[in-house]
């Protein structure tokens, strides 16, 4: 860091060569860097770092709000989770949602980005349309879709009936509720993938395509050997982001289904919310949070690892 030689408060006189002088400047110089980091470090310490430790500690206790004594129970909360069917169900729902939305969002995003790659007035308009749901909150999206799919006032069912199709019970059906939520999840996020991939596509030098075409590569080969390799970092990035946000699924199911019908769309974070902030079983909720943390870490690490293997070929 080259800023120190000219730092204020330090004598600008040249030191004689030899060992550093033993005497310090009269007033010990206060390093203002500590003032700069103070607010963030304080906030991160109090509201992020300490709570992470405390959450781990609480997960080892029977910590229910309103009770004066919080009994240390070791790993009991985790063993209880292991035998908790509702938790496993929530984990399954979350993983299925995440896998389906990530795959759908990335593949559809790639397809749309490839189609809208040329910049013209109509592709610009279409890009705006696809990106728009990403601006809306998950809550507004969830509420609007919940009523779009409503059997009495919903547009979707009304249009299907007009077309002579009997509309299914989208969100009331145990078999269709989760796929419907997944479809809305993809609808909400596909514009994000599209934008990131488009930004990455515009960085690809056109010469590469000309060279590939001269070598006789067809459209598919140009896509496979020029576009895809160039997009690999962006694809990995969007996949990672989609996975991590998918595993934290909460807003969409809370506003669309409240976890129903009979827990068929209850996610891990919804279960955490239920245990921690409805039943006030804070120790158990903390254990759920830590399992979620481990799942997220493991899945992200796996994805990074797999992408490295693919890089090696």
């Amino acid at each position, binding site marked *: 860091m080259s*800023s120190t030689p000219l730092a204020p408060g330090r004598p600008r006189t040249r030191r004689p060569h030899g060992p550093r002088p033993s005497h310090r400047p009269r007033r010990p110089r206060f390093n203002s860097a500590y003032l700069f980091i103070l607010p963030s470090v304080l906030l991160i310490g109090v509201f992020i770092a300490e709570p992470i430790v405390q959450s781990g500690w609480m997960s080892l206790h029977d910590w229910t709000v309103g009770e004066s004594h919080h009994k240390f129970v070791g790993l009991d909360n985790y063993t209880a989770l292991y035998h908790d069917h509702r938790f496993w169900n929530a984990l399954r729902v979350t993983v299925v949602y995440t896998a389906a939305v990530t795959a759908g969002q990335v593949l559809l995003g790639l397809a749309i980005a490839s189609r809208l790659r040329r910049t013209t007035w109509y592709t610009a308009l279409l890009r705006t349309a696809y990106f728009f749901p990403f601006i809306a909150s998950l809550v507004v999206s969830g509420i609007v879709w919940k009523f779009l799919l409503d059997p009495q006032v919903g*547009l979707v069912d009304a249009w299907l009936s007009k077309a002579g199709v009997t509309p299914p019970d989208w969100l009331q059906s145990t078999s269709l509720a989760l796929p419907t939520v997944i479809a809305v999840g993809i609808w909400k996020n596909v514009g994000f993938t599209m934008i990131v991939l488009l930004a990455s596509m515009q960085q690809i030098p056109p010469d590469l395509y000309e060279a590939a075409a001269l070598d006789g590569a067809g459209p598919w080969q140009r896509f496979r050997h020029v576009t895809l390799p160039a997009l690999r970092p962006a694809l990995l990035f969007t996949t990672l982001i989609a996975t991590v946000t998918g595993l934290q699924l909460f807003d969409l199911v809370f506003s669309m289904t409240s976890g129903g019908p009979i827990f068929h769309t209850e996610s891990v974070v919804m279960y955490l919310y239920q245990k921690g902030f409805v039943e006030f079983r804070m120790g158990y909720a903390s254990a759920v949070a830590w399992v979620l943390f481990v799942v997220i870490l493991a899945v992200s690490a796996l994805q990074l690892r797999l992408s490295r293997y693919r890089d090696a070929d």
Partner: protein
Amino acid sequence: MPTDTLRPRSAPGVGGPYDDGPRSPRTVRLITAGRVLARSGAALSWVAVIVGALATIVPFLWMLGVAFRTNSDLYADPARLIPKHWTLHGVHAVVSQLPFGRLVVNTFVFAGGTTLLLLLFDSMTAFALARLKFRGSNVVFLLILATLMVPFQVTLVPVFLTLFHLGWLNSYQGLIVPRATSALGIFLLRQFFMQLPRELDDAARIDGANDFTLFWRIILPNAKPVLASLFIIQFAALWNDFLWPLVVTNNVDMQTLPAALTLFSSQSGVDHAALMAGAAISLSPLAVAFLVLQRWFVQSVATTGIK
């Protein structure tokens, strides 16, 4: 869906810079069966893309339509997108059934206040980490990186208890202060500050600038684009945030729009027009900002990649 079906199969030739396949010049057009297939495939893919785009927009148009029609009109013909009789009933209903003005103010205070504090604190820390020398800087940076990996839900329960003991639940400080710094913001700003030329610092110091003037007068003005990007991203994320305000507030006078609307929507016999008017109003600031500043939004998302 395999992407190759979505592009025209054309013979090699000279094409535009942003296309996978250079297009064939018109003179060598050969009408073969494959070519006809490719043409119809391309046409189909355009139809699919346009239908998909309509599917992203129609729900919002329907929301607007429902907000401005009577409930009897809605029940009579739900297939209608545009109201038969326009009415402000929905807007009146949501304002009377919810403390709506208060909710809008709360959401603005929460999203705006948090974002401004966050930008200040994050850029201060990022400045120290990128441009100043101090003992323990590596430890601080590693600590910040480590917290980046932990999902926010892990801290939710202990932070809730802390706010409870401070008496900060249902208050602006409870909503704002714990979110007023972000590891990701520090990380992104640090990356940006490290790219600024060192000569800036040296020149400023020769002119007698201390750390504070260097930060405020030199570094921050040079970081305007990245600060604007972060502002957009953070403000939008907080405006749309749901779980955090839901946990910190249970009094409807302190809630933000997403939490209040969700709880409102789950009431039985909810007034559809009121709900959709509320949803439309809560969407409108970001929607208008997006349509006006589209380039900024897109660039912010593409560069920072966060919601």
